[in-house]
């Protein structure tokens, strides 16, 4: 039983296909990591699952229901939250209002106390946002905007979270914290599909992993197996792979 399956997916922008034949499976409660070079199609995969892009061919199923080609708001309302690369925050609105907009897509727990509780736990994760809560989001630094994007994703209380490079632009201390937070989300039962360039950290956290190369799955398996694959070490973990990732 899978939370999310993608089978034989072909997708891209206009006439140009970026993904050629991608099949992946995310089981409930898992962290699944997708790694790959720049331009391999990782962001395209997440955008297609989230309904931002339409699949050309292939199926995307969530809880046994075909969601391929559904619009992005529909997908968000049904429990899949995308934290996009490039943040996509609402700069004119306050940090607080950005977070409350995230709660719009909640399926359950829409009552005020539940939203309040989630707001508190999101802010507990990123204390830097507390003192900026009533400033326009555009006044945040780049890294703080990234925190806001992740926190807003959490406000949707999703069943599946699609995280596109959540560590992008964060200071080393915060990178560690955000990976720890992703681990805690799993304990709360959130299923996570994680795209990350910090492959060593992502694979250390994930249950299973896929390696995406030029729009095709080149390797898949348990994260520990993928992590020790010589080709993966060479291409994605760098020479310092054996050392501590920090």
């Amino acid at each position, binding site marked *: 039983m899978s939370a999310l399956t993608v089978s034989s997916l072909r997708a891209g*922008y*206009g*006439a*140009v296909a970026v993904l050629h034949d991608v099949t992946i499976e995310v089981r409930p409660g898992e962290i699944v990591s997708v*790694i790959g*070079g*720049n*331009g*391999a199609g990782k*962001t395209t995969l997440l955008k297609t699952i989230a309904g931002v892009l339409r699949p050309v061919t292939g199926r995307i199923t969530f809880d046994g229901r075909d969601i391929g080609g559904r619009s992005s708001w529909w997908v968000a309302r049904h429990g899949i939250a995308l934290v996009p*690369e*490039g943040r996509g925050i609402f700069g004119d609105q306050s940090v607080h209002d950005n977070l409350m907009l995230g709660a719009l897509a909640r399926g359950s727990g829409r009552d005020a106390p539940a939203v309040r509780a989630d707001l508190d736990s999101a802010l507990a994760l990123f204390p*830097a946002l507390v003192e900026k809560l009533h*400033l326009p989001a555009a*006044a*945040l*630094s*780049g*890294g*703080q905007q*990234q*925190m806001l994007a992740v926190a807003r994703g959490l406000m949707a209380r999703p069943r599946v979270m699609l995280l596109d*490079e959540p560590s*992008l*632009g*964060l*200071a*080393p*201390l*915060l*990178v*560690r914290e955000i990976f720890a937070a992703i681990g805690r989300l799993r304990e709360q039962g959130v299923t996570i599909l994680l795209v990350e*360039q910090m*492959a*060593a950290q992502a694979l250390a956290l994930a249950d299973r992993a896929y390696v995406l190369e030029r729009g095709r799955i080149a390797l898949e398996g348990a994260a520990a197996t993928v992590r020790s694959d010589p080709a993966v070490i*060479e*291409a*994605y*973990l*760098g*020479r*310092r*792979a054996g050392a*501590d990732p*920090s």
Partner: protein
Amino acid sequence: MTGRLGWAALATAAAVIPFFTSNTYYLYVVISVGLLTIVTAGLNVLVGFTGQTSLGHAGLYAFGAYTAALCVTRAGTSEWIAIAVAVVITSMVGAAVAAAALRVSGPYLAMVTIAFGLIVEGVVIEWGSVTGGPGGIFNIPKPGLRTHYWTVMLAAALALWLTANLRRSAWGRACLAVKSSEVAAESLGLSAYYVRIAAFTVSAAFAGAAGALFTFLNGYISPDSFTLQTSILFLLALLFGGLGRIAGPVAGSVALTILPELLTRLLDYRLILYGSLLLLSIYWLPDGVVGAVSRARRSRPAPLELSLSPLGRGQGEGAGTLLVANGVNLSFGGVAALAGVALTVNRHHIHAVIGPNGAGKTSLLNVLSGFYALQAGTIMVDGRSIDGLSPYAIARHGIARTFQTAQVFGGLSVRDNVAVGVAGPRLGSPLSALFATPGGRARDAFIQSRALDLLEAFGLGELAHEPAESLAAGLRRKLEIARALATEPLLLMLDEPAAGLSPAEIAALDAQLTGLRDQGGPTVILVEHHMDLVMAVSDRITVLDYGRVIAEGAPEEIRQNPAVIEAYLGATT
């Protein structure tokens, strides 16, 4: 190839029409298409290339028409001199209007140009002693219809050829760069204001030429031909044909001239027709008719090969310090982003600036590159103060930068993005760009080849002809670095260049940065969170926290500094 066949077919059609019909009505219609093509080709430079909307081009068209009419009737000049005078006068009027109006842009500019158009229309009606008032000017000596047909067709062909040349030149790339990202264009030394004025002036010249030719079509002109509705028609023809496409003006002009002629009985419903066409074209043909036709095929020019001068313009005078900043303050509404920051960067160094998120690193780069005005303190680069300079002036001073969210120029290919950096503010004369003079072409070939060499050095050679907006985020960053280096800076400021790069790509970036330093390339200020990269390449490191410098020193000292460990690095294992 198919493009050339299309142009040849079009030219042949225009050339044979007079031999197949003696009906002057058809000639009249085709001449109208030609006139509209000339105006919209010019408007394309402003709207399609540069991204600024004008709803006042009927005013410029009127300037051309009345100038030509007055030259012939009052000064007794020949038709040709009248046309030349009209072009010159309208260009000057256009430049003056642009210098005032382009202090605003986008929708505000559209409003200002509407006002200009209404003023011209009003003056033409009221200033009866010169313009003939509402009745206009009559009995203008005019050439025969067939002769005029050839003149207008050649002028229309010339207009399209000129815009095609411009699009391929450094000027064309500069226009598209300003349209896509004004901030990035300024960081390469381009003044967005100046580029927009040039584009407006070119479009005014085209409108003036078309206006003058319009005068000699009927032999009389009146204010009715130069209303706001005419301005809307110009813009609509361009949108319908295809914004930014060379052939767009032809397709739009044919459609918007012939359609109303076919539906003359529906004259009263003309506005409804135009409005519906606009809505339909935006819905079904967002790239216009020409865009829809050519979407499938993409031509790929063969790469050029030429030799390359060494990277960088060297390090200026002698060794020592390149940049000295002292007491730099910056606050937003009472919140201090930078408080008394001091930074000294030595020539040939890679100087990292690190610190927690929100510490003020990007704010510091924005002050150093002129995007934020310095509120207190001094900044000297290469012995000169940069206080109060605008971003493009600072860029011309030899300071290049990248942005945390890469600002590539959409609408330009990967190679052309770098070519904008290579040319920088050295765009040459707009006339040599319009007429594609041999000197201009040679310069351009050099610019393109240098851009390609830089792309090769960054492993982007294979992607040179892809549209820049199709690149994945990490590749956009590399492209941005190549584009910044293309300006041959003294100082290169990189804002998180390794964000979104894989470990292997970071290792390559490491090699590129140290390679640049070892070859005597630019001094580098590096804002970055990947500590293994920072520690490996940096000569000095400055650490910011809450807008203050909390540490400064060599990498080893920084790594051991307790304050840095507490604020930023965390306990290391």
